[in-house]
């Protein structure tokens, strides 16, 4: 009964003051768009850093112990592979090497601005942990062929598809060398260091990667990490400790620790989180300020209502419902607006809406109203019915 009356009072006031409530809903809608895009951008950036590492079909990544979990600082040669493989509980291992290169435009450069697409070049052992799962094409046919598997983003940005031959351009010594590689597969999500991924067999990687003038030992294959797949039923943490014990000068980390230590990953994430937090706080202050001012303007009405017998519950529920409705309308419009805007973005824009992130953001947005409205609620509850007669206690 009280709830029905409160809801009807709240809604009638909103309907008959549409302009006033629409303006605060519009502000909430804009804050919603801002928050959702921040969350999307944060997720897009994070994904750009962690996508490849996250997709490794293994549980552990082995680093040089002096590398301090920095991939670029970790350097192994082939001998490490056998040592790690020997550890009990290891099912399979694969070497992984990281560099970057440029894919030249398909059909040659059309203009001087058309510099090609920068990609993360990732060397893997076909069939071993770290190698990509292709969703199109056959995948690698040999461990040393001139073949490449493109991550989805690399395929979209270069326009290459399975069967095409792409040219990569790497600076080796003082000159730019070009290598033709046949696209043998497309794999989902292979970004690393905010660049699309292009994966090649490790031996091919060694040939096409950018190199300095002098190489320490041109005959030996160098790579950065060893990806480890545990035997079924083997606890990854226990296995990691065993590897560190039995293999000299290595450290083993799970995939999450690995990508959290990619340079910039944590810093970017906390920057975006801080911006999101600030925007939510601004939202709380804006909504709080609006409803507080509105309540202060209505003290006379509220006093009258209490004098004629409206309970504090009726007043409180009405106040809260109004805030919740206004907030809900704003967040809904903002979310729909964000979806509409996002649909117009090209696939290359690094904004990614992940269900979990969006739900957390929307949850945060839905509480800014009630949280901001607490001050207004307090003011409304403190009004004395006696003020209806122009008297105060």
């Amino acid at each position, binding site marked *: 009964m009280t709830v029905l009356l409160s809801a009807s009072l709240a809604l009638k006031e909103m309907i*008959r003051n549409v302009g006033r409530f629409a303006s605060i809903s519009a502000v909430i809608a804009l804050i919603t768009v801002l928050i959702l895009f921040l969350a999307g951008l944060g997720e897009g950036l994070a994904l750009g850093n962690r996508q490849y590492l996250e997709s490794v079909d293994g549980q552990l990544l082995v680093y040089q112990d002096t590398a301090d979990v920095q991939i670029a600082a970790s350097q192994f040669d082939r001998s490490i592979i056998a040592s790690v493989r020997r550890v009990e509980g290891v099912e399979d291992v694969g070497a992984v090497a990281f560099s970057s290169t440029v894919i030249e435009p398909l059909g040659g450069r059309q203009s001087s601005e058309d510099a090609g697409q920068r990609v993360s070049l990732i060397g893997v052992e076909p069939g071993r942990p770290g190698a990509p799962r292709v969703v199109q094409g056959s995948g690698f046919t040999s461990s040393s062929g001139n073949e490449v598997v493109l991550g989805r983003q690399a395929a979209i940005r270069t326009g290459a598809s399975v069967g095409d031959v792409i040219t990569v351009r790497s600076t080796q010594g003082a000159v730019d060398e070009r290598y033709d590689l046949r696209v043998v597969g497309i794999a989902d999500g292979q970004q690393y260091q905010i660049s699309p991924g292009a994966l090649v067999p490790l031996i091919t990687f060694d040939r096409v990667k950018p190199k300095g003038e002098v190489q320490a030992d041109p005959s030996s294959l160098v790579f950065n990490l060893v990806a480890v797949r545990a035997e079924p039923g083997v606890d990854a943490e226990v296995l990691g400790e065993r590897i560190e014990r039995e293999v000299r000068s290595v450290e083993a980390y799970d995939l999450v620790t690995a990508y959290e230590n990619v340079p910039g990953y944590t810093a970017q994430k906390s920057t975006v989180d801080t911006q999101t937090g600030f925007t939510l706080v601004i939202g709380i202050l804006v909504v709080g300020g609006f409803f507080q001012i509105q309540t202060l303007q209505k003290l006379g*009405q509220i006093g009258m209502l209490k004098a004629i017998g409206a309970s504090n519950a009726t007043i409180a529920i009405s106040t809260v419902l109004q805030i919740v409705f206004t907030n809900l309308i704003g967040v809904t419009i903002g979310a729909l607006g964000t979806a509409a805007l996002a649909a117009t973005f090209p696939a290359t824009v690094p904004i990614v809406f992940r269900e979990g992130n969006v739900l957390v953001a929307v949850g945060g947005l839905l509480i800014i109203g009630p949280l901001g409205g607490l001050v207004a609620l307090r003011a409304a509850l403190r009004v004395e019915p006696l003020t209806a007669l122009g008297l105060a206690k």
Partner: protein
Amino acid sequence: MTVPASHDAAASTFPNTPAGVTGPALVADGVTKTYQLGDQTIYAVKDVSLEVQPGEFVALVGPSGSGKTSLLAMLAGLLRPTEGYVRIADEEIGSMSDRALTRFRRRNIGFTFQANNLLPYLTVLENVTLMLSLNGRTTPAAVDWAKELLDQLGLGDRLRNLPSQLSGGQQQRVSIARALIHRPAVVLADEPTASLDTERAFQVVQTFAQLVHDNRRAGIMVTHDLRMVRYVDKVVQMRDGVLERVVDAPEEIRALSEGAP
């Protein structure tokens, strides 16, 4: 000040004494309200006793600061007396909790105020039926009666208007309908004519008096304008917090309203 003849004619048709045999609708006994200002005790209302019968319309008059509003607030259950008690519809309201008092007010008391009388976002009809909603008694028959009351108050064609579309006098009349719609024992009006011109003020008080009489409510109206007492059955004069004089002879009331001392 001369009053239009129509008011006199209408006033004379109202019986000045209620016919009922039941007890008083409102009893105040030895009601006192003091305020402490430093070590000084201010008597806003001092030892006031008063009875109002169903169907009786009482004016509470007196100079500014004489305690009219404080007394009205205590009769309304909005202010607790320092001493004495108030009984409405045979219930002593002084001992009730705040929550119980709120409930009691919405059931047994009708109000019109000087300001902030109506909710600006409710229509005329909704402002009146709000009292029914608060009491959980919004029946079709009650809504019909709300329309009838508004019709009697000359607002039959303004039911869907918002208060902002009405004049001050019309707004006052809406609040009179609201004060009566839930058939309360007592109807209280705080300076209902304060913001109206003389002509409208007389109309409002006259209609108010008629409705109090017809519906057998106990009506109490605070006013500082003695001319308004011509439609009441009893005038209670306050001075310095004390009940100075009660006038209930019709000819004396008429004399008072025409400016006699």
